[in-house]
């Protein structure tokens, strides 16, 4: 194993640790803050389920690099993860619940700025939209749920002690469930980038269970999350559970459930697909953050009571933390990338070149982008996305949607389907037809990803992109993941 890989791995582990320290508070904060569940119990349950979620369900996402996927050099990933981890760590130190994924996105924006890559304006909009939409939705759900729960208790008249026992059980159950999803959803962000350089080899436990190298990597990441939960999450838990306002145990449970509902209903592509395939109207997907949902839930209940108990100063600090986190993350990342590149002489990004070759112009034309004015730029190679777009826009007007499309089409990504390494492809994931189609392309070279995509689709219907509808969204996304996997696998690296 290369020492550098191990070193780079540490930043992923650090990010995992910060994630554990911060995000565990979303699932167990209210339970611990109201002293219904002891911190020790919460930490043990949370750790076990985070590990299970990461190793069992997280492996499904092994082919997804998480949001860090766009960062194309390992030293860059190292810095992005480190910057995000550092921002989350600082916020956690101040006891403020923040969104880990926003910290990561912030760091990626820092990387984008440093490398002159283009930041998707939708991503920025998403961050801002989450600050507003997510807490409001969670607060709304918490209020409705609280009203239902109250009405229910008026009818069944449970003994105070029995209510206490049931609530305790429900809080642990909800926390365990939340921890499982925390592990499953976030492990790709913590360890995803290291999948390709995993230093582990598969091994068997007592001849019964095989742990693949990816599973071992995820296990390691999950352990880092668990360590974060144990060592540092207590403060944020108390901020969420007791600092914002005094809460009853039932209210604590309502907040956790409202947060899960918001995450499930407004972020679940699975649910959207299910509704769409049943011919039912779908619920619009909104970007959500679990930290923001929990805080929104607590504030919602506080407002229901007239808002007098809410510590508005703390709410202000939390809100400020949400804005500061991505900004700080971006700044730290930018500055550190500069040092890593210039002082430690590490390559933090691989240049991505863009070219307006004949096939590219043709493809742009197919996609309805005006190409007549671009004749003068033909065959010029650009060394960064910024440079390419500047040249492009001098000649023709582009909307942000067009920009994305043009970048995707013109990006140079030399790929060669190597017959020797082909058998190493994950044949459980690719369908036999898909694999056969790839096999037929042995020895063929492509300059652009879309060329590979087009030819694969012409060989096998299994590689066909479906019409862009809600029902087909999941299929197309999965196809896109597979294409990206092939690209990474067969990419010609200088």
């Amino acid at each position, binding site marked *: 194993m290369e020492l550098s890989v191990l070193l780079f791995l540490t930043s992923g582990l650090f990010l995992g640790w910060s994630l554990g320290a911060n995000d565990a508070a979303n699932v167990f904060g209210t339970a611990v803050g109201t*002293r219904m569940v002891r911190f020790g119990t919460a930490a043990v349950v949370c750790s076990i389920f985070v590990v299970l979620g990461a190793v069992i369900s997280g492996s499904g996402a092994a082919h997804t690099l998480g949001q860090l996927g766009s960062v194309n050099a390992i030293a860059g990933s190292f810095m992005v993860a480190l910057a995000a981890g550092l921002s989350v760590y600082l916020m956690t130190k101040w006891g403020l619940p923040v969104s880990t994924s926003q910290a990561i996105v912030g760091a990626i924006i820092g990387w984008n700025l440093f490398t002159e890559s283009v930041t998707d304006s939708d991503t920025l909009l998403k961050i801002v939209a989450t600050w507003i939409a997510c807490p409001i939705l969670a607060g709304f759900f918490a209020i409705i749920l609280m009203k239902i729960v109250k009405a229910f208790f008026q009818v069944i008249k449970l*003994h*105070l*002690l*029995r209510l*206490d026992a049931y609530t305790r059980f429900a809080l642990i159950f909800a926390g365990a469930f939340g921890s499982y999803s925390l592990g499953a959803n976030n492990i790709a962000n913590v360890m995803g980038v290291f999948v390709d350089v995993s230093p582990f080899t598969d091994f068997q436990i007592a001849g019964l269970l095989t742990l693949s190298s990816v599973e071992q990597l995820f296990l390691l990441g999950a352990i880092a999350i668990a360590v974060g939960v144990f060592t540092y999450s207590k403060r944020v838990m108390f901020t969420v559970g007791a600092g914002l306002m*005094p809460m*009853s*145990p039932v209210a604590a449970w309502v907040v956790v459930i409202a947060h899960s509902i918001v995450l499930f209903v407004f972020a679940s592509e699975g649910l959207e697909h299910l509704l769409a395939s049943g011919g039912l109207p779908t619920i619009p997907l909104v970007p959500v953050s679990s930290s923001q949902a929990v805080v929104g839930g607590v504030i919602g209940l506080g407002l229901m009571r007239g808002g007098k108990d809410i510590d508005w100063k703390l709410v202000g600090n939390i809100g400020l933390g949400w804005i500061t986190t991505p900004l700080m993350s971006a700044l730290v990342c930018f500055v550190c990338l500069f040092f890593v590149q210039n002082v430690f002489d590490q390559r933090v990004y691989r240049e991505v070149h863009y070219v307006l070759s004949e096939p590219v112009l043709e493809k742009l034309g197919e996609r309805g982008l005006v190409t007549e004015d671009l004749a003068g730029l033909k065959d010029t190679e650009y060394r960064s996305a910024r440079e390419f777009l500047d040249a492009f826009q001098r000649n023709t007007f582009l909307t942000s949607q067009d920009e994305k499309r043009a970048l995707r089409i013109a990006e140079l990504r030399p790929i060669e389907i190597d017959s020797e390494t082909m058998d190493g492809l994950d044949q459980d994931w690719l369908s036999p037809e898909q694999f056969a189609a790839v096999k037929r392309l042995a020895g063929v070279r492509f300059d652009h990803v879309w060329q590979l995509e087009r030819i694969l689709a012409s060989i096998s219907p299994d590689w066909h992109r479906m019409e862009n509808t809600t029902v087909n969204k999941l299929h197309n996304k999965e196809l896109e993941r597979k294409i990206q996997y092939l690209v990474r696998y067969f990419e010609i690296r200088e």
Partner: protein
Amino acid sequence: MYFQKVTSLFGRTRALESQVDEFLDKVTEAGLVFSRAVRVYLQHGACADFDAFLTQESTIEGREDVLRRSIEVELYARTLIPDLRADVLRLLEDIDSLVNAYEGHLFRISIQQPDVPEEFHQGFLDLTETVVTCVDSVVLAARSFFRDIESVRDHASKTMFFESEADKISTKLQRGIFASELPLQRKIHLRYFVERIDDVANKAEDVADSLQIYTIKRKI
């Protein structure tokens, strides 16, 4: 193992619930014993029957203390109802003090053996009955606090009503005592007992007041 832990958690909760119920039952029982004992004393003085009631009251009080301590230990050892624990303990202690007051008054009667003229018997009986009813309604309010939070207010207002009834009876009784031809030392002695018995209703009212506050906290 986890399953066992969960079932034992629910099992122990049920056991604790019955302890709380028994604790409140005992208060009602103590009230019945108290009113019987006063009646017997007025009719026959500190006779054997009165002593038997006194012993019974002491046993109830002893059991009440055992239950209260056991509930307290259980609540703290298992960190149950963390948000309301302090209120519940305070409630149990206050209610326990009502039983202590019943027992204490019977002891005082037994030791001091006040000589109550027959014309005041009915007044003493009415006062005792009203005080016991007042305590019973605060016990109902306490039961509601555990099971049916919305009814606490109803029972608490009944407690207030009986407390003011007890005050009226006590005032009337004291006026009668001091207007009588009895020597001053007997008047003062009788007044002492009237005030003591009436004081139980005042204590019950205080418990009802606190209960209303606990209820507001529980509703949050």
